[in-house]
């Protein structure tokens, strides 16, 4: 699904990430940890091609990213759902319209009806908020809304960058359980977090692997948790 071979990323002459080797298999669940500023977000951005590696090989869905043009990147992102810690919405659209956006920009808005949309919003606990504007949502609600938007296209891969960073423990567990449920449906999950308790909580429910970024390099932190 995602494959890196000796990939590196540098910016302004400074090496941010080096010698990265990884293969994310379909249906796997990976945590990504590391100290603040270690390059977790940079790594995530490489995985949905918001950044290009400076050297080495990066293949996403079996395609070398260097061979992709901008339309290819757009099509590739339709297969990846991204959730950020600071998730952004179109503030002039309500929650339902924001969640439907990925289908709309892919010109596939006919693929979902009102009932299915309400089911999805109900799954993330936001069915009662479908007409709310983004500014009216709490931090946890925004994260769940971002998750709903990320999965509405039924993506193969979900990349979540510190989605629990701004929410309380109860909400963090709720988000984690949603991601675990998605993984059980066959989705590949890559979740960046510095919260080790969250990783331990996941251990009981899912076979996950932990990647750690340290000294600008990507390490496999151990066997399945």
């Amino acid at each position, binding site marked *: 699904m995602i494959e890196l071979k000796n990939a590196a990323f540098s910016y302004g002459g400074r090496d941010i990430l080096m010698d990265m080797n990884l293969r994310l298999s379909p249906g796997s669940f990976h945590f990504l940890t590391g100290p603040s500023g270690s390059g977790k977000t940079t790594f995530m951005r490489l995985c*949905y*091609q*918001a*950044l*290009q590696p400076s050297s080495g090989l990066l293949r996403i869905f079996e395609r070398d990213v260097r061979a992709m043009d*901008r*339309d290819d*990147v*757009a*099509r*590739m*992102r*339709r297969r990846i759902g*991204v959730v950020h810690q600071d998730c*952004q*919405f*179109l*503030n*002039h*659209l309500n929650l339902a*319209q924001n969640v439907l*956006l*990925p289908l*709309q*920009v*892919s010109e596939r*808005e006919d693929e979902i009806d009102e009932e299915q949309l309400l089911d999805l919003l109900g799954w993330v606990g936001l069915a009662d908020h479908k007409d709310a504007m983004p500014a009216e949502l709490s931090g946890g609600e925004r994260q769940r809304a971002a998750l709903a*938007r990320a999965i509405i*296209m039924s993506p193969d891969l979900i990349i979540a960058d510190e989605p629990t960073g701004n929410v309380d423990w109860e909400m963090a567990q709720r988000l984690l359980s949603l991601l675990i449920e998605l993984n059980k449906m066959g989705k590949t999950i890559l979740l960046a977090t510095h919260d080790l308790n969250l990783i331990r909580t996941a251990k009981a429910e899912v076979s996950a692997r932990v990647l750690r970024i340290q000294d600008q390099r990507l390490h496999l932190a151990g066997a399945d948790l």
Partner: protein
Amino acid sequence: MMGGVIAFLQGDRQADQVVPPSGFTARLTSFTAGAMAFLTVFALALSLATGRLADRWNAELARTSTVRISAPEGQMAAQSEAVLNVLRTTPGIQTARVMSDAEQRKLLEPWFGPDLPLDSLPIPRLIEVIESSGGPDIEGLRLRLSAEAPGAVLDDHTRWRRPLVTAATRLRMMGLLSILLIAGSTAAMITLAAQSALAANGQVISVLRLIGARDVYIARAFVRRFTVRAFVGALIGTIAAMVTTFFLPAAAEEGAFLTGLGFQGIHWLLPVLIPIMAAIVAFWATRIAAFRVLKRLM
């Protein structure tokens, strides 16, 4: 192609709504397009009017000439008759006639007023000459006139006609150049407004790119909005300018240059093209600006 244009004008309601309403840039674009259309109508009117003027002067003056006879009172009639005889026997002359006192008074009226006592003033006698298509041998005619009537001077209007026609032709060129400059300025201003709108919507664009929107989808929402605004603004500006032009003084014999600056006949249809051209300029200016901005984002 027509279907594509109609689909573009009808728009995609859902695609359009991804870009938030932007009041200031909307008003700026419409105002710019309207003002530029207004100026374009006048530049076009000036260009067409000077073109007509140049053609008219060329046609009217090219086939006429005047013989001016300055002679003592007692010799005026004899020299006039001699000049007419020469002219009647010169190949290339269609007609020649002595202008009446009333006609000469009318010619002098703008300078000396209506009560000019022609009899008491030593005013030269004028003979109007209409040339046939080939025209006479001007130099040969001058020699014959000087031999038969020493007080006669042939004026074939060349020295008047050339600078007037040149000036009118240059004015027409300046009018056309002005239209091109206005189109360029419109494109520049709409580009700036579009770039401003794109910059103000940076977050919208990055969200759309993140969820898989292609550049063409994002650009389309901006391009359609600016194109429609430019079209509507230009339409209003064009109508306002055409109404103003309609009430300009009509062409008058006495008015010469400053009257008749409006449109005539089928030329009234030309301003219809201005809003269409403004929309085309806005379409390409916004499209180029949008793709340039989008290219900077991953």
